[in-house]
């Protein structure tokens, strides 16, 4: 047992750190500092820089554009991105659908989708959840029937509704779970389809969340014709691909590096914000205690993640530990935003969406960080709900780990 990074890992860390420092777009940094909403172009600008460098998809097989990094290097990479507070690479294309495509797809599908996804030319969205199928995802009812088109080709005619579809307003393509056999047992009649979001019959409707943001959407599908060659893996075997994808979705959800960076930020805030006695909040024993507890819990999570990583390096796949990482990671992320809001005091109340914070030389409205404190706290409540709620994750551990 040994906690030190090897010299070559330290050298790698320095290389990565330098690259980010020299290449991260200054304009993006400015927008992040101002708490501005990110546009599609903003998300893609960093993606494209990394694609050019060859670092946008470290986990992919090397032949397809992966970096061939060790688990430790991948860990360092995610640490360094968080440390520099870079805009996240959206997971839907790189980390979610692509592994499904290169694992289950045909050569043609790989050729058509993987390079374009890698280069940021395709923006993906995820058509999984439905109004009636959330935790019970396999209960989905969006229907796909085989038809022969006027052109003599085979299609699926898709009808139904998806929901909580993140950033679908920007999406070029979506990966959808649809029911192709309504008579089979629920997991056995599902297929995995790639759907061009420009196909007639698709309507994307915004869902505004409690923080006022437009991040998620409802997607309505009405007689949407999808060529049969856009199905991944066998008909009615989509659940196998979906389960595979869910495991990928959960790895990395611990967000250790981002939470570390968040705690650093919180410490910065609390060392300048006044407490009740006018001294910095961080010298208030009660507040300091909560930050300390959060740090300790994050350390426990970090070393659990490192043990998982070390296991992966020895060829053990990411297993059910990912449920543990998801539960603890989201709880810590949520507590962090709670403490930032607490630090804001009275200035947690003002709300600035659609309302300019800059008012010329008018009265200042509290410290800069406070403007986003409450919306971020509200927004982060989603993390214990999505990607399999934390209750479902506990069920998974009970069943798969404890054998109950």
């Amino acid at each position, binding site marked *: 047992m040994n906690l030190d990074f090897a010299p070559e890992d330290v050298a790698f860390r320095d290389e990565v750190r330098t690259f980010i420092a020299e290449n991260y777009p200054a304009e993006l940094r400015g927008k992040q500092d101002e708490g501005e909403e990110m546009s599609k172009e903003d998300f893609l600008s960093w993606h494209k820089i990394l694609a050019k460098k060859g670092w946008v998809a470290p986990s992919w097989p090397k032949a397809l554009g992966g970096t061939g990094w060790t688990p430790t290097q991948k860990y360092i990479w995610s640490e360094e991105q968080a440390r520099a507070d870079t805009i996240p690479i959206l997971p839907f294309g790189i980390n979610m659908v692509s592994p499904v495509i290169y694992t289950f797809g045909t050569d043609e599908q790989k050729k058509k989708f993987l390079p374009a996804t890698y280069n940021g030319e395709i923006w993906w969205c995820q058509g999984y959840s439905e109004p*009636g199928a959330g935790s019970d995802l396999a209960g989905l009812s969006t229907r796909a029937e085989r038809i022969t088109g006027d052109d003599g080709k085979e299609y699926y005619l898709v009808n139904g509704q998806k929901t909580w579809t993140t950033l679908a307003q920007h999406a070029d393509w979506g990966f959808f779970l649809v029911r192709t056999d309504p008579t089979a047992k629920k997991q056995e009649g599902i297929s995995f389809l790639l759907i061009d979001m420009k196909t007639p019959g698709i309507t994307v409707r915004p869902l505004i*969340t*409690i923080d006022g943001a437009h991040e998620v959407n409802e997607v309505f599908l009405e007689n949407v014709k999808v060529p049969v060659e856009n199905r991944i893996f066998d008909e009615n075997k989509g659940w196998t691909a979906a389960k595979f994808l869910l495991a990928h979705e959960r790895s990395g959800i611990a967000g250790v590096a981002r939470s570390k960076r968040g705690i650093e930020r919180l410490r910065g805030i609390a060392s300048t914000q006044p*407490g009740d*006695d006018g001294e910095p909040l961080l010298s*208030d024993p009660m507040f300091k205690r909560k930050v300390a507890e959060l740090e300790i819990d994050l350390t426990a999570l970090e070393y659990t993640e490192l043990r998982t990583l070390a296991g992966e390096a020895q060829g053990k796949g990411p297993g059910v530990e990912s449920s543990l990482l998801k539960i603890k990671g989201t709880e810590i992320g949520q507590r962090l935003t709670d403490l930032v809001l607490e630090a804001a005091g009275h200035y947690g109340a003002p709300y600035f969406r659609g309302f300019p914070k800059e008012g010329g030389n008018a009265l200042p409205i509290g410290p800069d960080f406070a403007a986003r404190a409450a919306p971020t706290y509200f927004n982060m409540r989603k993390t214990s709900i999505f990607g399999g709620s934390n209750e479902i994750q506990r069920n998974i551990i009970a069943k798969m780990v404890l054998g109950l």
Partner: protein
Amino acid sequence: MDFNFTEDQTMLRDSIARYLQDRYDFDTRRKVVASESGWRPEVWKAFAEELGILGAPFSEEHGGFGGGAIENMIVMEEVGKALVIEPYLSTVVIGGGFAKHSGFAGASDLIGGIIGGETIIAFAYAEPQGRYNLADLKTTAKKDGAGYTLTGHKAVVWGAPWATHYIVTARTGGSQKETSGVGVFLVEASASGITRRDYPTVDGSRASEIQFDNTPGILIADDAYGLVEQVTDEAIAALCAEAVGVQRKLHEGTLDYTKQRKQFGAPIASFQVLQHRMVDMFMNLEQSVSMTYMATLKLGEDAEERGKAVSSAKVHIGRANKFLGQNAIQLHGGMGMTDELAIGHYFKRATMIEGLFGSVDHHLKRYETLSFGKAA
């Protein structure tokens, strides 16, 4: 011992509840919150004239109904249930409280204006540097002939854009954090030397930053830190009652939703892990009711007993608001995250109440100081 309401008190509750049910539905509120003014003066008028509730906690000699803190509690619980944004707390509880207890020369007129619905008050007490310390004041008041002039920056003044008057705390003497030398002033919103910056709040209300620059004000009370604490305690007790209303809706809404929502072929309310969570929500709510009664009934005690009672209630309510709010969202799943459902709006109000007039930590410390002494 008696925890029953009188017939008059029950009537008061019924009449406001009925009015709000008819005229204050969630969709209407959403539209009002998004409108330019952000409130409905006609609701206030109805509170004054149709319902007469603005006189509920004032004595008959002032033109009120002879009620007090319990009447405030009843009204505020209904305010919480309907997420009312019109400023009952700052006008009737706080403005009325300062007028009643100070007995300053203009008290009767002020109360008359409140009861009639013409006078609307915002409480300008917080300052950018002061966090929850009521004595941390940089705003100064200088004697100027018969009156005073005020200069300073007041932070997050809830309801200020709608107010006709501000009640302002300012130093007539003493140093920045001293409890002596704290004066309370009445300032007309139209007075000279006022710069105001209005903004919405995250829970659908409105507030302002206010800069006073040699603004004329009338002295309500000087060397009045004790009075500021007393009225703030009354405000906190009323805020706890509002929280009870909010918590009831969070709890009921969650019960209803989980009974309807089916996953894995069953209502999710049938899953034991969720049942236990809802039981914990229920216990938190019941104890919030108990603490609110306790604090309200002890408002007339001496400063130490009153302070302990109010701070302990606020500690419990702060924690319960967080527990009920977070779990209401969690048990609603994705639906809880949408702006379209009322539940998220109750969560947001519950979150704001956590911090209003002092966080859980602030009131724990105050309780410790009052209960164990400063040396402890």
